[in-house]
């Protein structure tokens, strides 16, 4: 996975970069499965390998697919990145260890989901229960985000309606009269 990421850094052929980002996402999905997050893996597979790749290809089709030559290493960002990474690693030192069943994360909120969702909500898939019921409001927000993105794409690159007689607007702007 790291190899994928790093080679994306070096490759200048954007097509290859897009392909690799698909693979990167595939690996992430496998990792999710390994870490028991099947729903997430499912979504990552659908999104990362599917939709994102298709969209990126669509964009590449409309732009140049080769990146201009650039300086190989920019030191300012590199320092910033190393600093950020260092801070993050410093922060991990006090974290609960991987797989530790006694970590606070497993004992405060989550256990109610595991123990009671079957009776309180119903579906055997706890993720679905939490997603749609306990934290259903987040999901509403998520839906709104998808909605925003779709409308946003329309607004940004959507094409105009053809100027039919029954088109609702009577465009006063000059753009309206050119078609």
């Amino acid at each position, binding site marked *: 996975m790291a*190899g*994928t990421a790093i*080679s994306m850094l070096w490759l200048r*052929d954007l*097509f*290859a970069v897009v*392909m*690799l980002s*698909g*693979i990167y996402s*595939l690996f992430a*999905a*496998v990792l999710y*499965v*390994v870490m028991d997050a*099947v729903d997430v*893996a*499912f979504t990552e*597979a*659908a999104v990362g*390998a*599917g939709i994102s*790749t*298709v969209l990126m*290809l*669509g964009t*590449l*089709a*409309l732009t140049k697919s080769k990146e201009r030559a650039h300086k190989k290493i920019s030191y300012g960002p590199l320092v910033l990145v190393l600093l950020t990474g260092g801070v993050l690693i410093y922060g991990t030192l006090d974290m609960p260890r991987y797989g530790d069943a006694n970590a606070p994360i497993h004992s405060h909120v989550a256990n109610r989901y595991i123990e009671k969702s079957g009776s309180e909500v119903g579906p055997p898939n706890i993720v679905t229960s939490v997603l749609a019921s306990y934290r259903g409001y987040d999901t509403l927000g998520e839906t709104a985000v998808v909605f925003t993105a779709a409308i946003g794409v*329309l*607004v940004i690159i*959507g*094409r*105009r*309606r*053809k100027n*039919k007689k029954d088109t609702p607007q009577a465009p006063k702007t000059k753009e309206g009269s050119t078609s």
Partner: protein
Amino acid sequence: MMFATAALGVIVAMALAMFRAFAGPTVFDRILAVNTAGTLTVVLISVFGFLTERPEFLDIALLYALINFTGTVAVTKFVQFQGLGYPVGDHEDGDV
């Protein structure tokens, strides 16, 4: 044990496919490599389901296979036509 061995085999195969994807050099090498990697992922996920004794998650593998197909179609189409949507046609009803 049988499943673990299988999983290991698949991972080795994936590594080989990945090498081709990184190295290229032609576009078709990469496409093929990515496609193979996808297929292997499908297998890996299935194997993994059995490995953890919860084989009901085959759905993911199924989805993967599907997406992989669509993705490959998109990529090949891109390579051939440098675009996705053609023919676009001339519709009265635009997007906005």
